[in-house]
């Protein structure tokens, strides 16, 4: 027993010594929120560094960026910051993860947030602002957003009228993919109105060689999301942006007559055995086809039209010519009537900051500027990126589809609306909305039943 006591004491002594050593290492972290870091920025006086030097010398300071964008799309982002790093001396550290949405919340709750996070959904931004850890956007960012982005975009980066997050990248969801070569061979014209599009659909179906539309909504646990985009896109056209906003914010019931009309309009295409599912099968095959493969029959000449977002460009197999006269391209999903202008459904990321250190504010301001948008465009030679920043020179974008997207964003008549399911509560926007739309297609569930079930799942 005596030896035991001695070893116990020795253990305690070791523990004490270790903790003392560790405590000695802990330094009081410097807390200089906002303002300048002092000194002169390395790039002071250089023309390309305009607007980046006012925070002083940021050499040796790190900015950590956490995003949902992973390889290979991460490298263009990292390259686009080179000017910033050279001008300010700060070091930007990038981390992308596909588990971003869950991990970000873990890190924020544990008190270990990144300096900057690219948030792909306004709904997630609201949740994070609710934790009280998100820092309000500095003045410079707000001014940049006023100058370069539409008011609708600023609204999506705000929570309760406080502006937190500047928009970053964007994508257009109101696209119909088609094969320009197939259209040219058959003498088909790109439809300018919804009626033209339906007439073309009927013409292709009548010819009897192929079914005009193809679609796929399978996406693992997120199965159904492409169908929600269909409804949102069409509702923007049949009901208009105001009804759309009320619907997204649950000011009208989910199964409002306007929404029923919208979904029935979608059903005229997606639930018509004569129109779908070109090159794949019948209506039900839409539910079992992975969304990545939904448009591929276009390349085989077995399908003519595929409604999918601009990012579908990455899904065409290597070697596919994606351009105005190539194997695949997209046209803007035409409006229904001219009452509501040209509605554009889209998505994008927002830059939220969890720190107000000078290097973070400097980086935030840089990201919201036209300088960054153009740097990013130049750093993305393979295409697949676009921003709603109106300071973006369209000629800097390399791929034709990105150029078309940017033109749509910069069109003064365009009425932009963010993907609605991304703004709804998770139980609806990432739950019943997906599953009921899948049932609507796979089980032939009626429009009213589907919408009513979603309405019932929405608890305010």
């Amino acid at each position, binding site marked *: 027993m005596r030896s035991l006591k001695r070893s116990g004491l020795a253990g305690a002594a070791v523990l004490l010594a270790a903790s003392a050593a560790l405590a000695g290492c802990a330094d009081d972290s410097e807390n200089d929120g906002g303002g300048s870091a002092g000194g002169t920025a390395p790039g002071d006086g250089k023309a390309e560094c305009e607007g980046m030097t006012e925070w002083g010398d940021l050499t040796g300071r790190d900015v950590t960026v956490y995003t949902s964008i992973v390889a290979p799309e991460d490298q263009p982002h990292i390259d686009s910051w080179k000017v910033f790093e050279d001008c300010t001396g700060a070091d930007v550290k990038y981390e992308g993860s596909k588990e971003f949405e869950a991990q970000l919340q873990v890190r924020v709750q544990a008190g270990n947030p990144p300096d900057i996070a690219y948030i792909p959904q306004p709904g997630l931004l609201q949740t994070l602002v609710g934790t009280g850890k998100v820092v309000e956007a500095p003045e410079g960012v707000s001014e940049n957003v006023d100058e370069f982005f539409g008011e609708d975009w600023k609204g999506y980066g705000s929570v309760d009228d406080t502006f937190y997050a500047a928009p970053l990248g964007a994508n257009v969801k109101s696209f119909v993919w088609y094969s320009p070569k197939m259209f040219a061979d058959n003498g088909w014209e790109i439809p300018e109105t919804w009626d033209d599009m339906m007439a073309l659909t009927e013409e292709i179906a009548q010819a009897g060689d192929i079914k005009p539309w193809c679609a796929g909504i399978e996406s693992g646990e997120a199965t159904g999301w492409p169908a929600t985009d269909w409804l949102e896109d069409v509702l923007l056209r049949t009901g208009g942006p105001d009804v759309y906003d009320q619907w997204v914010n649950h000011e009208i019931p989910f199964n409002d007559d306007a929404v029923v009309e919208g979904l029935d309009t979608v059903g005229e295409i997606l639930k018509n055995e004569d129109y779908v599912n070109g090159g794949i099968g019948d209506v039900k095959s839409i539910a079992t086809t992975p969304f990545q493969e939904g448009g591929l029959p276009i390349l085989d000449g077995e399908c003519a039209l595929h409604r999918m977002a601009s990012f579908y460009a990455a899904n065409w*197999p290597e070697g596919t010519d994606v351009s105005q006269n190539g194997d695949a391209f997209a046209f803007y999903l035409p409006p229904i009537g001219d009452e509501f202008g040209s509605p554009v459904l889209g998505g994008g990321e927002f830059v939220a900051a969890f720190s107000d250190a000078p290097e973070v504010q400097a980086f935030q301001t840089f990201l919201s500027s036209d300088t960054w948008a153009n740097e990013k465009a130049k750093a993305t030679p393979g295409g697949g990126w676009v921003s709603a920043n109106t300071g973006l020179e369209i000629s800097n974008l390399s791929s034709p589809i990105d150029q078309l997207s940017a033109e749509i964003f910069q069109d003064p008549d365009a009425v932009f609306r963010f993907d609605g399911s991304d703004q709804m509560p998770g139980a609806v926007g990432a739950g019943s909305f997906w599953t009921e739309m899948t049932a609507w297609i796979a089980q032939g569930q009626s429009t009213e039943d589907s919408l009513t079930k979603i309405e019932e799942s929405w608890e305010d």
Partner: protein
Amino acid sequence: MTVIPEEKSVEAIVAQESVAATAKRGLTSPWASLAAVVIAVLWTIPTFGLLVTSFRPESEITRSGWWTTLWNWDFTLDNYDEVLNGSTTNLATYFLNSVVITIPSVLIPISIATMAAYAFAWMKFPGRDFLFVAIFALQIVPIQVTMIPLLKLYVQPPFNLQPLAGSDAPGGGLYTIWLSHAIFALPLAIYLLHNFMSQIPGELIESARVDGAGHVQIFTKIMLPLMAPAIAAFGIFQFLWVWNDLLVALVFGSNPEIAPLTVRLAELSGTRGQDWYLLSAGAFVSLVVPLVVFLALQRYFVRGLLAGSVKG
């Protein structure tokens, strides 16, 4: 040789047949063998399909099933090339990170657990049984529940200790991963090794005491050699668990420079899943190391599984 003596010898064998032999004969009937083969083949088909898929070009993977290779012979190594060299960070870096994470995460819990198991089995001190039950009960706590509180402790430790996580974490944040794996492994490790250790006959320890050996000598000279199979078995368990772990690495390793192989594989399919055709090749790359470890050490597996659990 004629047929008749052969029959006689068979009869003689049948007459002497033991119970074990009956069981053996019953189990080795041709029908049982056939069933075993059929099941084995059925079970292997998906893995085989995955292997075939991993060698097919992207355009074929996305448009047709792997069985079409029977009449459509088209193979490529592009997928493996993309998996191994496609990222801006070399795959070897992730591989090295996995090794650097795994080895301490295996050694730390083993060394602590063997000592703790010795204390629980062969030292008498007040509250021993209570402590042992408490440690055993800790196994019930799911690790998902502990993650946020644990991360909070790392970020803001009490008594002004050095924070182990956060932007300027020491060792790039590796300490948090090692510690977390050790913490999650210890209850089971102590329990398994304790049960094994308590089976060692008490006379052995008594005689060592009589010869004047202290606890340290008994532990190092008698216990460790006898414990080798159990330690090896637990080591394999822990190795496979840590090597295949994604969750702990994601939550506690917030620095991309120390990301292990599993993190890279999880990102393989691309931001919007457009590169999912790479997953089959990625699966086989990640499979290699655990497979080698398992095949090399599998005999310890069974031995270690039987140690501790049943007779304890």
